[in-house]
């Protein structure tokens, strides 16, 4: 054979400049079984031509040996197997031949095409067995006789997409585990179960967690379960988990195969050779919590995408573990708090019911008995003393608890008076001397006089000293108890040291905790409520002092109390001038009695000098008149019934009944002079009894005295409202009962004694009570009133404005609320309200007030009578709950950190009705980033005072409220991006109370958690976007285009929207925007396939309508691709002609330079695969110069309750508005401008193009180039629609810039590169000329000619900037094109 016909003929057979065309022309075909190409069948020659001229990877197999031909696009797919031209297939592809061989054979034998989609072919083309996926069809090639002689294939390497989708699924699977784990270990196991399912990408994983004791990593879970790779004998070691945990930096291992034997392969033929060991990041600001080992599958090189996937796996795993840890911690705290609350609440609510009645029944009779049996048998008397002591003990316990509730409610009435503390303390200590002596202990009291008096409340100090001494005695069996008092550093220092059993170090921190009892091996008594020391600490705190304890087991304990001298630390109104009272000996009795009982009996102290029941007990009161009054007693407790009867019988004629119903019947039968009734009774309770008696005229006038164990706030008013005449709360003394009975009997007989009746009534009330005159002047209050507000009867009358009325300057809102209620009180005379009042001590008290007007029966004056109930605790609880709930709701709706912060600030503003709430975030040293509920302001624009307040937060520890004065408060918290300071600007002088501070701390804590949660969402969002991009594949947008993809924000999910830009031969570009139905992975997968198919079709030079018709057939085969909408266009950038067709897709929008708007509504037909086989229409549109085209998916414009056309109209207006904006900026602007408030709820793709595309000319710095550059620029300007005069001016201006670049920019570098770039917008154009040399500063006098050039530039172009830089000079010109 010869090549006689010359290269021209070979050029025809194998056309084009491509490498493979060259190779095929040069190949010695004649020496192969294929023979001279000119003898080849037409079909083979045609196939070769198609192959060589296509940009799509294609191959031709020919002949019985399936010899292999391919094009340039196929080169990267072939890897190191190139060159392989005309080699037999099995020689090139031995590793996949078992799969593809039979397929090729079947095509050769049957002549029927095959279709393979995402077929796994393990190829060895880069030196290792690689996991690759392919989508292709084998089509038969016939020779001129019609015999199948070869196979033609267009292939698509879908590896990236298949693997990308698979990895996305792994990450989503991991993400789906969020919130399931209840412990860190469980989170690790869950993560490993997910990774076990992901063997193809993570054949082996191991999670190690930091052990808190020694910071060593400990294996927590592995995947697959039970995998135990054994380190090889001479290997460099196991996994470097400890190193990674210390350094907190990931390590990549490439010698894995040399380190371990038996690593799981994840289903691949070879075991892993590479792995990453990554730290598991802790919460922001804390150390890594562990490490994770992730082996890489041998089928994929550990490239950058693989590494970032593994990093994402580590990040997701860390998030799971952190969330589980946070959950555990939170759970523990919640349980602890709940337990404490439960214990406390149960204790307090039970105490009055359970203790008061028995206490009455014990102490009353015992008091009587001790008097009556003063001369009785000693044994009897001793028994009586036992009862008496126990009664005292119980009373002490109840009193302590009452002290607590007073302290908690801020109602402890303290009187701090200056005393000689040494004398007082020594006197108190002496009370214990006999008990300590009797215990055989040494008692040392060393209290020399102090240099100055100390201000104390005597009652409280007594409790402090006695509690501590009692405690010392209880736990000391040998040695001594020592009391010393000294002055030290401006403080009085009391130490009480014992040589007792001591306290274990672990228990010390909880020593002063309420209800916490230290379980000790040995003590004198097992009794104890666990509240004595807690009370001591509270009392000392009230004194502005401190207490601490030092102890050593078996050596003893030292309590040290420090009280400051002076009065500066005490509330001024509670300080009294001089000591008036003495230590009440009665208060010490319970302590001593109790202590003595721990000790062995000593006859010497029997009948010790303990005070009697007091002089009040005088026996039954004689009743005036002849016949004794008849008293009906109703009580269901037989003991109580008998006790009452015994008390009353000497003076009255008593009948007793066991319930209300019997009482009513008895009273009806014969009305008594007085009914004494318990409130709680079966069948008919006391209140119902009163009501029933009042309802009948015969019994309406019978006075009723109610007895109750209920000390609740509403009980007394309830009783009195029901019509009872008097009310007595248990425990009561015999004398008290008799006095009341007598008074009521007398009252019943002497109607009209209103003043006495009222005194009795008011005194008996447990609830705060007041009477005021018509003008609001308060003329009567009771003791409870004084307790709640601090203002007692001694200050009467209180005229408006009352001293407890919050001042307008301090708190206008509270002032107004009280004012409203006051107006109602004066004008209407009846009502209820809950209002904030100011206690005498200065703190805020919330009270529920209810009032009614009455007419004074004596003088007919109108009075208002009311009651107050302290609801402070309830009020703040409700406020906290509702504020927390409001904040939670707002946070839960936020989809990003910014949004969460914004919502939270608004919520805080509502809680405090603040003027504004600001947040400053410091991340570096510079100015903080500012967010505010007010108008957007920069940091510098804040008023100086406010700015200082906010800046002052910066060095404050987190979650501690900062109040510097009235009018505002702040707090700091950890934000994922740095420290966040939040400032509440109240906008007026309003106090920020202790309760407000608690609430702020609580809300800030909540906000911190919310921000962390939002931070996680942001991270997941980034992950989702990154993965969608991985599926969309890298797209280098040609000049003149801008595009955006955004996944739906709630729920955060990838979707089926896509865009594509396909450069075609000449100046043509294919543009596609499409939208697959559905969401999540299935939609993304279908999208990936449609996108590839569409791209391939466009590359085969199909027109838009043809592309869509072909896609119809394809979409019918791909799951989830049906009903996809697509806009497909082919744009000629030289002429602006856009041929397009739309498969049910929303119309493209064009904003023309003159402000006109056009919708590309033609060329429309149905979505894909709805009517396959039907031809589709096509239309075209000539884009005028400087017009802007917007293609998009419906997520951009579709909103609920709004027509699609309205959305398209809004998008059109936005493009029109931005037609003068550079394209990249416009894309961002459109995405944010059109976004609904909560973010896009569907995914969005958009594509922008502006005619003509930018001009980019690069030329060597030689003057001979200028004419060519001008010519190109002239053509481009004409395409921009510029007038000849504008063109001329721009040419000269640009020419001067280029000439400058040549002449000066490249003085030392002739021929260096110069770049000219011109970009058009709707209103004008922008030109930049860049060189890489140095621009000479223009000096017109030295070089008039160059100066003239710059002058021309400035005169002809509007805005000219010349930026000389190290790397070269940039001349930037902006020119407006008149319409």
């Amino acid at each position: 054979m010869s090549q006689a016909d010359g290269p021209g003929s070979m050029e025809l057979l194998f056309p084009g400049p491509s490498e493979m065309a060259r190779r095929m022309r040069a190949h010695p075909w004649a020496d192969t079984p294929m023979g001279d190409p000119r003898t080849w069948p037409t079909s083979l020659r045609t196939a070769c031509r198609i192959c060589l001229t296509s940009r799509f990877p294609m191959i031709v197999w020919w002949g019985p040996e399936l010899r292999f031909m391919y094009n340039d696009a196929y080169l990267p797919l072939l890897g190191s197997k190139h060159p392989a031209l005309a080699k037999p297939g099995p020689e090139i592809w031995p590793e996949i031949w078992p799969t593809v061989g039979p397929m090729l054979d079947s095509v050769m034998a049957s002549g029927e095409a095959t279709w393979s989609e995402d077929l796994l072919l393990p190829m060895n083309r880069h030196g290792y067995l690689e996991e690759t996926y392919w989508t292709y069809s084998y089509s038969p090639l016939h020779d001129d006789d019609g015999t199948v002689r070869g196979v033609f294939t267009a292939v698509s390497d879908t590896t990236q997409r298949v693997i990308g989708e698979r990895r996305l699924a792994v990450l989503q699977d991991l993400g789906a585990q969020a919130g399931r784990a209840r412990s860190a270990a469980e989170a690790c196991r869950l993560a490993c179960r997910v990774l076990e399912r992901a063997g193809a990408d993570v054949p082996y994983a191991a999670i190690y967690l930091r052990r808190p004791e020694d910071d060593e990593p400990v294996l927590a879970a592995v995947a697959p379960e039970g995998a135990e790779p054994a380190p090889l004998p001479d290997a460099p070691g196991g996994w470097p988990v400890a190193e990674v945990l210390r350094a907190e930096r990931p390590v990549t291992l490439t010698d894995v195969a040399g380190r371990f034997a038996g690593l799981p392969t994840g289903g691949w033929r070879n075991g892993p050779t590479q792995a990453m060991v990554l730290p598991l990041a802790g919460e922001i600001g804390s150390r890594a919590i562990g490490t994770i080992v992730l082996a890489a599958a041998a089928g994929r090189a550990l490239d950058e995408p693989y590494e970032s996937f593994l990093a994402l796996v580590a990040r997701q795993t860390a998030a799971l573990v952190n969330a589980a840890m946070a959950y555990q911690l939170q759970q523990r705290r919640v349980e602890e708090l709940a337990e404490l609350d439960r214990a406390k609440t149960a204790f307090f609510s039970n105490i009055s019911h359970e203790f008061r009645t028995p206490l009455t029944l014990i102490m009353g009779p015992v008091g009587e008995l001790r008097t009556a049996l003063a001369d009785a048998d000693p044994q009897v008397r001793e028994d009586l003393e036992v009862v008496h002591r126990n009664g005292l003990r119980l009373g002490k316990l109840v009193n302590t608890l009452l002290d607590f509730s007073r302290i908690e409610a801020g109602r402890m009435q303290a009187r701090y008076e200056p005393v000689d503390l040494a004398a007082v303390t020594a006197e108190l200590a002496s009370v214990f001397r006999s008990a300590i002596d009797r215990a055989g202990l040494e008692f040392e009291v060393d209290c020399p006089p102090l240099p100055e008096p100390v201000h104390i409340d005597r009652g409280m100090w007594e409790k402090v000293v006695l509690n501590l001494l009692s405690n010392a005695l209880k736990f000391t069996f040998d040695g001594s108890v020592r009391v010393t008092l000294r002055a030290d550093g401006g403080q009085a220092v009391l130490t009480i040291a014992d040589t007792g059993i001591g306290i274990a170090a672990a228990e010390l921190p909880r020593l002063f905790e309420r209800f916490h009892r230290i379980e000790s091996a040995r003590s004198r008594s097992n009794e104890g409520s666990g509240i004595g020391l807690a009370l001591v600490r509270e009392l000392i705190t009230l004194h502005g002092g401190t207490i601490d304890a030092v102890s050593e087991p078996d050596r003893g304990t030292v309590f040290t109390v420090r009280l400051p001298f002076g009065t500066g630390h005490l509330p001024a109104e509670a300080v009294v001038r001089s000591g008036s009272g003495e230590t009440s000996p009665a208060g010490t009795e319970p302590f001593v009695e109790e202590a003595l009982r721990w000790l062995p009996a000593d006859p010497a102290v029997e009948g010790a000098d303990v005070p009697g029941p007091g002089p009040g007990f005088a026996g039954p009161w004689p009743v005036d008149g002849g016949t004794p009054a008849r008293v009906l007693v109703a009580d269901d407790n037989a003991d109580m019934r008998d006790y009452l009867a015994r008390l009353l019988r000497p003076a009255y004629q008593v009948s007793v009944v066991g319930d209300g119903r019997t009482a009513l019947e008895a009273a009806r039968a014969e009305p008594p002079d007085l009914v004494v009734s318990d409130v709680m009774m079966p069948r008919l309770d006391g209140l119902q009894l009163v009501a029933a008696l009042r309802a009948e005229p015969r019994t309406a006038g019978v006075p009723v005295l109610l007895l109750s164990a209920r000390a609740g706030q509403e009980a007394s008013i309830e009783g009195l409202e029901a019509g009872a005449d008097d009310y007595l709360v248990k425990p009561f003394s015999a004398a008290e009962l008799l006095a009341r009975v007598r008074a009521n009997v007398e009252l019943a007989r002497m109607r009209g004694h209103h003043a006495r009746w009222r005194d009795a009534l008011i005194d008996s009330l447990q609830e705060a009570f007041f009477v005021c005159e018509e003008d609001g002047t308060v003329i009567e209050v009771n003791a409870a009133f004084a307790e709640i507000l601090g203002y007692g009867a001694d200050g009467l009358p209180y005229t408006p404005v009352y001293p407890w009325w919050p001042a307008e300057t301090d708190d206008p809102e509270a002032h107004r609320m009280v004012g409203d209620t006051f107006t109602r009180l004066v004008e209407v005379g009846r009502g209820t309200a809950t209002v904030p009042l100011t206690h005498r001590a200065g703190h805020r008290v919330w009270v529920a007030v209810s009032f009614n007007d009455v007419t004074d029966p004596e003088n007919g004056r109108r009075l208002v009578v009311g009651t107050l109930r302290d609801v402070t605790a309830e009020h703040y609880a409700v406020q906290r709950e509702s504020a927390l709930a409001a904040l939670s709701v707002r946070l839960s709706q936020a989809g990003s950190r910014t949004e969460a912060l914004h919502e939270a600030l608004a919520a805080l503003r509502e809680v405090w009705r603040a003027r504004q709430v600001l947040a400053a975030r410091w991340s570096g040293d510079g100015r903080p980033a500012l967010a505010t509920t007010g108008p957007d302001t920069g940091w510098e624009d804040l008023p100086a005072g406010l700015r200082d307040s906010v800046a002052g937060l910066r060095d404050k520890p987190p979650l501690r409220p900062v109040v510097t004065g009235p009018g505002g408060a702040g707090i700091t918290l950890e934000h994922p991006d740095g420290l966040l300071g939040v400032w509440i600007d109240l906008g007026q002088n309003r106090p920020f109370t202790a309760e407000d501070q608690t609430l702020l701390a609580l809300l800030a804590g909540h906000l911190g958690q919310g921000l962390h949660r939002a931070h996680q969402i942001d991270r997941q969002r980034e992950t989702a976007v990154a993965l969608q991009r991985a599926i969309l594949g890298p797209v280098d947008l040609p000049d003149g285009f801008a595009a955006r993809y955004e996944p739906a924000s709630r729920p955060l999910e990838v979707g089926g929207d896509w865009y594509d830009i396909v450069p075609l031969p000449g100046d043509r570009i294919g543009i596609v925007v499409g939208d697959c139905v559905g969401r999540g992975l299935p939609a993304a997968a279908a999208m990936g396939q449609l996108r590839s198919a569409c791209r391939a079709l466009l590359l085969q030079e199909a027109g838009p309508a043809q592309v869509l018709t072909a896609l119809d057939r394809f979409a019918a085969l791909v799951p989830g691709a049906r009903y996809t909408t697509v806009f497909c266009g082919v744009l000629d950038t030289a002429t602006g002609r856009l041929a397009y067709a739309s498969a049910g897709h929303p119309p493209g929008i064009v904003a023309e330079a003159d402000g006109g708007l056009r919708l590309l509504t033609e060329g429309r037909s149905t979505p894909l695969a709805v009517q396959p086989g039907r031809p589709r229409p096509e239309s075209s549109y000539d884009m005028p110069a400087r017009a802007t085209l917007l293609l998009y998916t419906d997520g951009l414009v579709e909103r609920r309750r709004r027509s699609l056309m309205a959305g398209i109209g809004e998008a059109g207006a936005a493009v029109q508005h931005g037609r003068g904006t550079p394209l990249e900026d416009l894309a961002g602007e459109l995405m944010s401008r059109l976004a609904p408030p909560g973010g896009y709820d569907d995914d969005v793709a958009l594509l922008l193009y502006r005619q003509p595309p930018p001009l980019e000319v690069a030329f060597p710095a030689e003057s001979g180039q200028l004419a060519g550059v001008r010519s190109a620029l002239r053509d481009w300007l004409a395409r921009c629609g510029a007038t000849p005069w504008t063109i001329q001016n721009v040419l000269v201006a640009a020419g001067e810039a280029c000439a400058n670049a040549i002449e000066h920019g490249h003085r030392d570098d002739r021929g260096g590169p110069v770049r000219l770039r011109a970009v058009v917008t709707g209103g004008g154009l922008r030109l930049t000329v860049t060189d890489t040399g140095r621009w000479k500063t223009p000096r017109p006098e030295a070089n008039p000619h160059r100066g003239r050039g710059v002058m021309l530039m400035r005169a002809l172009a509007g805005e000219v900037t010349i930026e000389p830089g190290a790397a070269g000079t940039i001349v930037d010109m902006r020119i407006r094109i008149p319409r």
Partner: protein
Amino acid sequence: MTTPLTLAHTRRTDGTPALIVGGEIDMSNAGEFAAALSGTGDGTVLVVDLTDVGYIDSAGLTVLFDNTGHIEVVANPLIAPVLAISGLGDLITVHGLDAGPDGGPAAGGLTTG
């Protein structure tokens, strides 16, 4: 692509020597242009006819400024703005400078922004 430039010495009907210039003048051929202008040197006025010039930049203007002693210039509407901005008309006679093209702006007529 080199910049096209034609230079033809001739005499007008009144006998004045004239240089008919066509094409474009930039830094690549300014030297050639300068040579054609400085040729006479006998003090007579040379009419430089730029009617067929489509482009002139500061390099060409510099040649004109260097020869203001003995030339008059005939401009065309397209290059008139550049000549006007340069201030050449203040030194020598430039014909066709005032007449802006129909509907087109004269010197400085380019709106900028």
